[in-house]
């Protein structure tokens, strides 16, 4: 239900941002100039990208730079090796974050997004890999301890499995919860999962499915 609705009310935030509208309310002729557009550029020649490509010739899919931030898309199978390379060779020692994006109609469906930071370079790199619904991503929690909970959260919210993760349990929702809340097809109102707080009675996925017409909507 989410993203077709995002285009439906383009004028919605004129009312949502009263302080923005307030100075302009005197005359409709006053129109602030649009902010200058920053375009993304290709970053295939960037030294970090070249470094990954030199180490793993088949790993890099594409690379771009936007707002001084480098994004590298790598093959899903190589992500743990790329993370190890970035940590050991490029000195990206601090794993800032692991998350995902659900592109509902795309194949493969998800992007898993990693942010790394290097203290010596004082810069960040974003690494992404495309993941299908049935795919498993190699876990980087062996490389960066910090990724442990972030990967668990990504599993909990998107249903993306991380192969080799030491403790891949749900973290924010409860054991036995059925559904992945940050997927685009999960209803915003939530679902009644049959109060599945007792895993012995309601095993993983034991509650009614989100598509079940009889599932009661809790608001």
């Amino acid at each position: 239900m989410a993203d077709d609705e995002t285009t439906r009310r383009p004028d919605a935030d004129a009312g949502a941002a009263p302080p923005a509208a307030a100075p302009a309310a005197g005359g409709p002729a006053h129109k602030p100039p649009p902010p200058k557009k920053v375009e993304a550029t290709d970053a295939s020649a960037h030294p970090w990208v070249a470094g990954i490509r030199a180490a793993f010739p088949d790993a890099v899919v594409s690379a771009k730079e936007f707002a001084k931030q480098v994004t590298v898309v790598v093959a899903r199978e190589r992500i743990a090796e790329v993370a190890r390379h970035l940590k050991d060779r490029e000195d990206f020692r601090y794993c800032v974050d692991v998350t995902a994006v659900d592109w509902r109609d795309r194949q493969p469906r998800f992007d898993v997004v990693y942010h790394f930071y290097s203290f010596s370079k004082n810069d960040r790199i974003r690494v992404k890999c495309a993941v299908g619904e049935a795919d498993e991503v190699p876990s980087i929690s062996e490389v960066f301890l910090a990724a442990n909970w972030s990967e668990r959260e990504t599993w909990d919210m998107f249903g993306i499995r991380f192969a080799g993760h030491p403790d891949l349990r749900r973290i924010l929702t409860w054991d036995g919860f059925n559904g992945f809340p940050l997927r685009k097809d999960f209803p915003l109102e939530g679902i009644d999962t049959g109060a599945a707080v007792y895993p012995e009675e309601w095993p993983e996925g034991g509650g009614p499915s989100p598509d079940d017409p009889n599932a009661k909507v809790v608001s």
Partner: protein
Amino acid sequence: MSDERPISETEKGLALRTAEELRTAALSAAESVPVSLHPPTLFDVQEMELNFGPQHPSTHGVLRLVVRVDGEKIIETKPDIGYLHRGTEKLFETETYPMGIPHTDRLDYVAAATNNHAYCLTVEKLLGVEIPRRAQLVRVILDELQRLSSHLVWLGTSGIDLGAVTPFWYAFREREQILDFFEEYCGARLTLNCMRIGGLPFDLTAGWIERLTEFIDDLPSRIDDYEQLLTENRIWKKRTVDVGVISGEECIEWGVTGPVLRASGVEWDLRRAQPYECYDELDFAIPTRVNGDTYDRYVVRVQEMRQSARIIKQCLDLLEPGEVRGKVPRVIKPLAEEVYASIESPKGELGFYCVSNGTNRPYRMHVRPPSFINLQALPRLAKGHLVSDLVALIGTIDIVLGEVDR
């Protein structure tokens, strides 16, 4: 003092014994006891699982820890979180960019201004807009006031956790005054919603600057008050020194940021490393300590409060009349791009990762919460300590469950 009895030399000697000496003495005493062939099992290793929380006053919210203990000693800690999960990231996707700002108030609810700031900074980066000079300075003032109030909440509550009730009253006295400044500026005391994409919602009210100057001039002496109560306090030191030691390398490995990282000797602060707004023009120090224990984290936070006061004073001197809102279109529709921006919140690196699909709503807005990542290191900190130290350790990481669970 009613006890006028003179203290004998033996008693003085006994009082000065260290833990190691006591242990040796106890062991040698135990050796003189005859050993039975069938000893009682009372003192055998008896592991048990203990539920710490979710309703426990020292967990500062709804945090449950499943602790495996041997007697009083912690063998393993398993945090169980999510009791306050409200699906904030999902809500961002359904609302326009300006409508997302109030949701950020509810993440780290004792530091709403810094959350607003990180969110606005991310969207501004995506749009490529510059904000006016006056707005930058006021944002920095609000941020630092928020850092002060957040650290004051931390100081008061973690003092109470360890049995020091008095600092709480002093810390909250100043916090109330800071909240008054927020209330006068934007009408709210806790969920501030005090920033907008492209600048600020309002200009400062008349007299605000003068009153704030007066408060900030007075603040260092108030911080002296807290330090007098705690810094050299023997009980405070006994409970905090050498408790939960973590090295700088380990902090980085666990992704721990903020005062915890700086107390372990890593001089890293996003205000200095990747300056946003006008932090690069301001003169301030980054307090660091080397031991990485609970006491050092206390010292670092108190020193940070002094630096915040310094920053606010400089910003107040630099303030000049001007616009507080940059040129931002009325309907915010960024390019279909992605961007990550982060600031130094009172707890550590607070970042937002925004993916846009060219519409007026974010396609995906992810929060990188410092509390969530820092809490991950708690089992590592708590291992081998006593159950009562766990209380000190939850306090010292300074978590806010609204941000952990989102």
